[in-house]
């Protein structure tokens, strides 16, 4: 069980890293828009003007 004395501090380090990464991401504005990314997947960027005749 003494491996826990290593693993748990390691987990805490990872946790700290995750929190730091998230704070950085929030700070750089990556979470400012929580609505568009959900629908972005259905939008084709490369659609040519003449290839679609669907309604």
């Amino acid at each position, binding site marked *: 069980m003494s491996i826990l004395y290593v693993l*748990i501090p390691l987990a805490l380090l990872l946790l700290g890293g995750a*929190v730091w990464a998230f704070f950085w991401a929030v700070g750089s504005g990556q*979470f400012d828009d929580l609505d568009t990314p959900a629908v972005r997947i259905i939008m084709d960027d490369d659609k040519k*003007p003449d290839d679609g005749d669907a309604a």
Partner: protein
Amino acid sequence: MTKGAETCFHCALPIPTDCNLNVDIEGEQRPVCCPGCKAVAELIRDSGMSLYYSLRDAPDPGVGRPPAETAEWQVFDSEDMLAAFADQSRDHAETTIYVGGMYCAACSWLIETTLGKLQGVESVDVSPVTHRLRVRWRLADARFSSILAALAQLGYQPQPLAPENATRPELIEQRVALKRLLVASLGMMQVMMFAVGLYAGEFQGIDPDMQHFLRLVSFVVTTPVVFYAARPFFAAAWRGLIARKPGMDLPVSIAVGSAYAASVYATFTNGEAVWFDSVTMFVFFLTLGRFLEMRARHRSIDRSAALSAKLPNTATRIEAEGVAVVPVSQLIAGDLVKIRAGDAIPADGVIESGNTSVDEALLTGEARPQPKSRGDLIAAGSVNLDGLVEMRVTRTGGDTTLGTISRLSERARYTRPAFVTIADRVASYIVIALLGVATIVAAYWYFMAPERAFVITLSVLVVTCPCALALATPAAFAAAGSRLSQLRLLVTNGNAIEALSRGTTVMFDKTGTLTRGMPEITSVIVFDSSMTEHDCRLIAAALETASAHPLAKAFAMSASLPKVSRQHVEVGQGVSGTIDGRNWRIGSAQFVGGGASGEGNSVNMTATSVFLAVDGHLVAWFDVEDELRPDVAATLSDINRLGLRTALLSGDNRNAVEELATRLGIEEFYFECTPQRKLEIIEAAQGNGERVVMVGDGINDAPVLAGADTSIAPAHGALLAQTSADVIMLGDSLLPVTTAIRMSGKTMRIVRQNLAWAIVYNTLALPLAAAGLVPPWLAAIGMSASSLIVVLNALRLSRFN
């Protein structure tokens, strides 16, 4: 359906009858209303982005009439402008642009894709929530003006923001809330994991060193949760204490603070038990609740910024060494600015030289041009229509009339509903009572079983936290508000939903509400062969300048008009006046005389015939039509089905009102009403115990909206009216009126359910906890579950149709 009911495929504005433009989108001919919309639609199609049309939530009124010249933006390429608006590094620049007219995810996609294709643009971030766009480009390959022009070409109204205006407070609030939520949730997960070890240790034995170690790491993880994630609760509790109005944050803080302190004490003294798991879970659920509430609050559309988009970006300032184009934000009182015809007025000021007429529709809703000359005040946001003027700036930015009005409407939006305030006050009594009960419980158990006293008191504090009670109403209102804004209704007054749900009578204004309020001359027949149609229109326009009749708007022309003397208005009949020594009359058939008759000739039911005569001879016959809004009939029958009475109030003459009322099946109608009379009718109805919902655009009669129990105004109306309206409808259809009424009923039902549930829960949980039957972790689950049930119940409103 009238022929005018056809609307533009791009911007959904009605298509003028003399316009015949089409755009081929995905193989179908779509009608558009103007060359501007045609250009925009073709641009969108040619960039392969026709998908925009199927993804957008609704066409945006206002989008689609792009500013004509690209040249306007070129002032932004100068060094000074770049320095004022953009952050520059060696070869890159980055700036924030407010994008007026952007409402949905489809818009943000369109903008990102279009700008992303511009050469030299490195990154584009669009936030539809705050209407802001962050763009970074290489100075060598792209120019600021080309980015702005590209946005303008899409039909949006770009407005570069100086760094100090670039970040919305909402955005900062959201970022901080996200960070707190993440700390609380990750902290909770970790502490739960350690807690599993500790609880298992209770049952099957645990090495004391390992127990101490697990408690220690729990302490390490819980500390930031308490001091960072839960800080707003402590701060609010402290503010409540200072203001002597303890809110629900106080027992929350006491519970979190004391449980944390006791756990820390137990950790370092090898005490009986720790409650780090309960603490983190409690904080997490509270933070989650707050976060959801905040998101709902932010969703309502950012109207104040939308207003500032009505101001121009730049002004031409007259300085000692000549003229300079400067950003509007750099204007100060005392500056002399030059305003060309067609430009929006950048600040409030006094005309120093020049004559012009201005369109003040944004402020007053009055669409007719107002003549202005030296010494006259002109207000920011109005549009200079014809002359070149020099203006001495008196007030800028937020101090202008426009700024004041937008602040007023903003403030109205943040007033809390009366009974939420009552609920808050009640909650503060409940909190005091709870603290009393907790003290009694603590004292009792201290004498009966001192070792259990702390745990039981903690459970009482946690389980009875009146969160559910406090959330019951605001959660439902926030959900209703955000759903309504998706359905294109803006709730500007917190009391509106409750008042709407109690409405018994819906009164409609006629012009501008049931009809579009933009009368147009649909046909002209000239009887006098010595005159052209244009001559007749000029004379009619000159005569009608005196009239405040809604139909007079149809005649307004921006050309220079012949001079009229002895102008006289016969209310509800017409106008007479002398031009070049001849006596002209314009108005109804009996008013002008000369054998005019509109009997049986009018093609269209909604058209009104207006006659022009000179010295008793009939000269011309105009058909003026104010088209009905779409869905009027459906809206009225829906309202009747809901069991509400309908009535029509109008300043129009009897014939027009009666005809419309009969056609729409409205039994109660009032004609030739002055604003004063409308107010009296509403007050009389209120005297009979009716609760009146007034639907009107408030042009010339904003007090009428304020006098009704609730008022709904279409968004195109006067700004001033919007400050007195409780609900604003975006878009053209009248159907949102019924949506708002049905939604308000449903919201109040949910509020009642929530309150009932919260009260039942608290009355059941308190005795159980006081009896010592609820351990702290169960208390935390119980309180969180009760709050979540309330929030989830409220969120059912967001699926309302």
